[in-house]
């Protein structure tokens, strides 16, 4: 679990990421997003299997901000969602390295599972 900013830690030191954290970082890889856009992005990408509530989302964002993986990108209104000003979040270079490292780790696991024929083979 990501807890505190540690200067000079390699990206691998943050792994494995909790699923919600990984989904948030993947959503932010598209660019700056506000809270609800992150939630929608996660739900769409996971085909509805991962649904973040506001508490889980902002709890994770708080930890990611403290760890230096995400930074605030300022406040502005989303034209699609009315006049209310919303806080935007974006990945830091460290956050991008960490999400890439986690994606590689998961990819290696999936390839291992495929080699063992645990996935990618239709049951007889």
């Amino acid at each position, binding site marked *: 679990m990501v807890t505190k900013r540690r200067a000079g830690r390699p990206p691998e030191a943050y792994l494995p990421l909790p699923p919600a954290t990984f989904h948030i970082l993947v959503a932010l890889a598209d660019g700056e997003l506000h809270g609800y856009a992150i939630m929608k992005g996660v739900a769409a990408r996971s085909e509805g299997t991962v649904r973040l509530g506001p508490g*889980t989302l902002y709890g994770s964002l708080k930890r990611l901000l403290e760890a230096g993986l995400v930074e605030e990108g300022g406040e502005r209104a989303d034209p699609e969602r009315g006049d209310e000003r919303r806080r935007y979040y974006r990945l830091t270079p460290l956050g991008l390295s960490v999400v890439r490292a986690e994606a590689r780790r998961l990819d290696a696991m999936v390839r291992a599972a495929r080699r063992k024929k645990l996935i990618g083979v239709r049951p007889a």
Partner: protein
Amino acid sequence: MSAERIYRLLLRAYPPDFRAEYGREMVLVFRDQCRESDVRTVGFWARVLCDVARSAPALRAEAWRARMSDSTRTLEVIMKLAAVLTVLVGLFGVLNAVVEWVAGSKGAIDGRYVIAVVLGGFASVLLLGAGVAILLETRWGRQPARLAPFASLVSMAAAGLLFPWMSIFSQLVGFGLPVALLIALYWPRKPSWGSTP
């Protein structure tokens, strides 16, 4: 009561600092959710309650740990001051033992006098070591810091028993300070030195 008001009440489950920082954003997100969902369904409120029940205790625990960490820092400052005092007392004790030895060596020295001076010098060196170990904050410093006050307490007690004429000041320095240090060192807390990330 509107859904938003109910949600604002539920937000009280979160730590005040977190609420102050993210409460407004959370309400905005909840408002967006309400626009795109049917708030009259049980499923909607089950998801909301589940989210609060899952995230609020974890954030409360984090806030509590942060507060504990702050009090640990205060204790460390007190321990640093105690360590400085211990170093000064240790230096004074070593000097005193040397002066006593020089003064005693001019006349006839009996065995009890030698034991008293040696025990006093030994205890002072241990106190000095304990103070330095705490001040240096080395990875291994915690062990001598634990051992030295204890050994100091034992040797001072031995000196006190052998020589009941010891002054109250000597008794206080000999017994009070090591005991205070022992309590400070064994007080349950998160160690701040020697721990790796």
